[in-house]
């Protein structure tokens, strides 16, 4: 730079901000010693620089109370609004359970083996109760049980079917007197999910009141009390059918 040239404000600001090289700084100092105009120029620029620095150091804080209060009000209102919306949405969702067409309607069931709807764990559980010992009744009962097992097999439906006998129905399972020993044996072999059950209370009553020592067919299971077992199964979600 020429000895007598004026320094620009930009150059002098750099001098003030200590951003010049040592040689450049020496130059300015040399000129300042005899250049009154330059002195004044540097002085003015230094004032501006100082004021700016001072301003940045002292950023005015918002007036306490006024802005905070406003923000709180809006925040509270927004929260209340959001909460109201959320609660309404949840209430609406809960109060509008999804409606499904009644799966048990006759139309849905007509003429279709696949129409059987399985229980939650995909196994139908059915308790068949026989308490009448008349021969025709027992025959019809076995017909119904077999028809049921065939239906489930045809519709690929897993099923547990328990035939529970008490009272005179026990006659079905008496090895010495039943007319259905062969049929029951065949049914037991053919249908894995089928179980025949005898009531111990009835067995005791046959012994005590009729003097009959009960001998059961092979594969028959004994339960303590027929009616208690019926109650237990219903509590466990089994369907109950009295044939």
């Amino acid at each position, binding site marked *: 730079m020429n000895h007598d040239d004026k320094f620009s404000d930009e150059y002098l600001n750099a001098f003030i901000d200590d951003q010049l090289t040592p040689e450049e700084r020496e130059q300015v100092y040399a000129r300042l010693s005899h250049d009154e105009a330059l002195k004044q120029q540097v002085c003015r620029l230094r004032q501006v620089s100082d004021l700016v620095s001072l301003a940045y150091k002292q950023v005015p804080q918002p007036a306490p109370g006024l802005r905070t209060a406003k923000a709180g*009000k809006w925040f509270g*209102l927004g929260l*209340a*609004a959001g909460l*109201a*919306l959320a*609660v*309404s949405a949840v*209430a*609406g969702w809960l*109060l*509008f*359970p999804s*409606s499904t067409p*009644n*799966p*048990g309607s*006759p*139309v849905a*069931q*007509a*003429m*279709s*083996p696949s*129409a*059987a*709807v399985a*229980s939650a764990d995909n196994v*139908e559980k*059915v308790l*068949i109760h026989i308490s009448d010992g008349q021969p025709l009744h027992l025959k*019809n009962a076995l*017909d*119904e049980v077999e*028809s*049921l097992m065939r*239906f*489930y097999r045809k*519709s690929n439906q897993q099923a547990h079917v328990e035939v529970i006998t008490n009272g005179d129905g026990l006659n079905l399972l008496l090895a010495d007197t039943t007319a259905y020993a062969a049929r029951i044996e065949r049914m037991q072999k053919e249908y894995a999910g089928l179980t025949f059950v005898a009531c111990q209370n009835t067995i005791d009553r046959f012994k005590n009141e009729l003097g009959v020592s009960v001998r059961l067919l092979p594969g028959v299971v004994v339960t303590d009390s027929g009616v208690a077992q019926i109650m237990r199964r219903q509590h466990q*979600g089994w*369907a*109950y*059918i*009295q*044939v």
Partner: protein
Amino acid sequence: MMLLVKRIFLFTFVALLSHGVVARVTHAESREKQKVVYHINVDDRKVLNTAMKTIQNHLGAVGADNLDLRVVLHGNGIALLQLAHSDPTFQGKVKSLKRQGVHFIVCHSTLAARKIDFKKDLYDVTEADIVPSGVAEIAHLQSQGFSYVKP
């Protein structure tokens, strides 16, 4: 201004909630019918007559609109609709129950085994009333929340 906004929010909330409540009430009325399945598998006329009286009593006690009552007929129980086909008194009783919303369901296995033509031999049965297995249907209905009654 703030008060107005608050009022708007409150109104919206109450409106949404009450809409839900009203919908629930009407929804409840149409959805929560008492569900019951009657099981008939005998042909004894006395038993059949008593069964129909019992069903009528049931309708009277609960109200036909509040009841989803289905009668499953299989085995010898098919006699109920055979009698209704030929006997006017019987038919009148069945007609009356049907008018009150009672569904009579027929077992196809029974029809096939006894060679019964549902169009010719039974009173007022359509294909929609026929299920493959009456016993399976009863079990199925129970899994759907139906109570079981053997009259």
